[in-house]
């Protein structure tokens, strides 16, 4: 597939933004009482959100999970509003109700992030049903982890989506772990994608650290869905660099395994390709990096300077 220069640059930008955003969060989590709640990061997995969202139009919808930062940034969420929400501030995208775990950004068609593992697929089916019902030429993407495919809700959702040929992309980020469990300890099939056979839909395995490969596979699945041919299950093989929460010491994760995967980092992979093709010069790259640094810095400044909500604001937004 021919991928335009603009698309490739857009993806590099998205990878860098996501990485810098989360590296900043890693540091912020070391400061006592700065960031409330658990902090679950997708560092190392950014190519999935980046590549998939690059294949989407603004009207396409994403339903994401507890590891959502990169998905939302790639879809176009405002880093300032995300950061303020993560801080628990009034100016955050969810007025402090969500925190980092269930960031909802309806403005970019990311109406619901669920941290209930397996909660996403049935919702994605309903959202895609609405698209089919209204004859929209759009799709819904559901981001889930490998562990989530063991919840019954995943199977019920895929079955219904298949039966009704709904325009859904079930995007599984197989990062080799679910909590402290290694893939082999929770799932017997070798590839999550094999599960698609049980529902008579295509299941594909793709290198999840290769943003261009991710993009290509998502474009194909999207085209199928928009053409009324139904859902695809795409398994992206990737890896979780950070723990399940920043207080996780990752004692169950071999150090050398982390190192091997860090060598396959999605950022240099795309960056070096763009440099080699002359699509970006070292100077332009440096400029892009400092622009992303500045965006993250601004977001943190905005979050720091924002007020907390007033306690009684807790009572708002229960009903419409």
């Amino acid at each position, binding site marked *: 597939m021919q991928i335009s220069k603009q698309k490739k640059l857009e993806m590099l930008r998205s990878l860098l933004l996501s990485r810098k955003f989360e590296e900043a969060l890693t540091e912020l989590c070391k400061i006592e009482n700065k960031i409330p709640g658990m902090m679950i990061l997708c560092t190392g997995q950014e190519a999935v959100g980046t590549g998939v969202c690059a294949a989407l139009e603004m009207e396409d919808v994403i339903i994401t999970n507890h590891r959502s930062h990169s998905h939302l940034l790639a879809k176009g969420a405002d880093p300032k509003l995300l950061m303020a929400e993560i801080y628990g501030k009034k100016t955050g995208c969810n007025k402090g109700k969500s925190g980092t775990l269930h960031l909802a950004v309806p403005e970019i068609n990311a109406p619901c992030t669920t*941290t*209930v593992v397996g909660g996403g697929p049935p919702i994605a089916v309903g959202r895609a049903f609405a698209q089919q019902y209204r004859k929209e030429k759009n799709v819904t993407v559901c981001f889930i982890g490998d562990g989530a495919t063991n919840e019954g809700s995943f199977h019920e959702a895929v079955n219904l989506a298949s039966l009704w040929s709904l325009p859904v992309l079930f995007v599984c980020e197989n990062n080799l772990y679910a909590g402290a469990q290694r893939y082999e300890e929770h799932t017997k099939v070798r590839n999550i994608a094999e599960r698609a056979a049980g529902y008579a839909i295509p299941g594909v395995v793709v290198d999840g650290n290769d943003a261009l490969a991710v993009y290509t596979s998502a474009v194909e699945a999207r085209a199928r869905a928009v053409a009324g041919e139904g859902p695809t299950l795409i398994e992206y093989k990737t890896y979780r660099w950070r723990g399940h929460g920043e*207080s996780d010491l990752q004692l169950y994760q071999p150090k050398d395994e982390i190192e091997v995967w860090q060598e396959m980092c999605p950022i240099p992979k795309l960056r070096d390709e763009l440099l080699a093709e002359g699509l970006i010069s070292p100077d332009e790259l440096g400029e892009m990096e400092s622009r992303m640094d500045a965006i993250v810095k601004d977001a943190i400044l905005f979050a720091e300077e924002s007020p907390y909500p007033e306690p009684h604001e*807790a009572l708002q937004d229960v009903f419409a």
Partner: protein
Amino acid sequence: MQQLGMGQAINQALREEMFRDPDVFLAGEGIGTGIHHSPMLPTAGLLKEFGPGRVKDTPVSEAAIAGLAVGASVAGLRPVVEIMFNPFFTLASDMIVNHAAKLRYLSGGKSSFPLVVRMKSGAGIGAGCQHSHNLEAWVAHSPGLKVVMPATAADAKGLLKSAIRDPNPVIFIEDIMLYFVPGAVPEEEYLIPIGKADVKRQGKDVTVATWSKMLGVAMKAADQLAREGIEIEIVDLRTLVPLDKDTVLGSIRKTGRLVVLHEATRTGGFAGEVAALAMEEAFESLKAPLRRVTGPDIPVPASPPLERFYIPDEEKLIAAVKDILK
């Protein structure tokens, strides 16, 4: 006496019962190899001690975990399964509410399901409403389930041991913040019966009925009120089902006033049940209308000031106590 957090006390209970009865086994997500390594957590070290045959780390599959408990228990095993956080009980609830709770009755009393479901509950961790949601009233509303919510480490140990030996399904709800509150726990083996409330503080002016983490709030409020000459009697229900009506009613008859305190949201909360009990069976003793102090009718928000607003505190309890003394 040893000073233990509730997590450590639960750990001792599990360990002792596993030694006592080879039919006891554990299952749940991350109960063996967890992402957290604190010895303060309930299942720390048990995989190492008892091996993977009896400490089963499961996939992320709440319905399967709960079904495992139902099926294994009808065969006479004694499963103690863990649902990581109370809100995820909804995924296990078909097996527990529609099956575990009803099957003894359905069998005309012939089958029994001696299982325990442990889960973490309670606000205070800043994680927001999909992790923090007190659902005890939901469970208590399902006939066939016993519901235990300990407030102290010592109670947790004795109650959990009873729960494991109980021939019925028992839902055992642990407030996550209590794992880290130290308390005196007897060294020798002891059981605390399910269905027996405990008067944690004697008083003559107002009965405060409460359970789980809110006991701590009541105890602090009691100290403050005592300085102003008001003596509250604190009844820790410990078990919601079966409810120890006698102890609650006895205290109401003594003080003539009742405040019910819980962290869960108000509408349909278990305070309503305790209030109805007081009205039906001790109305003649009540000198003033009773009060409920509860969480507001909202999902638990994540932002620190919002989450603090959600959790009932001493101030709210003290205000309610003074209000009914007027």
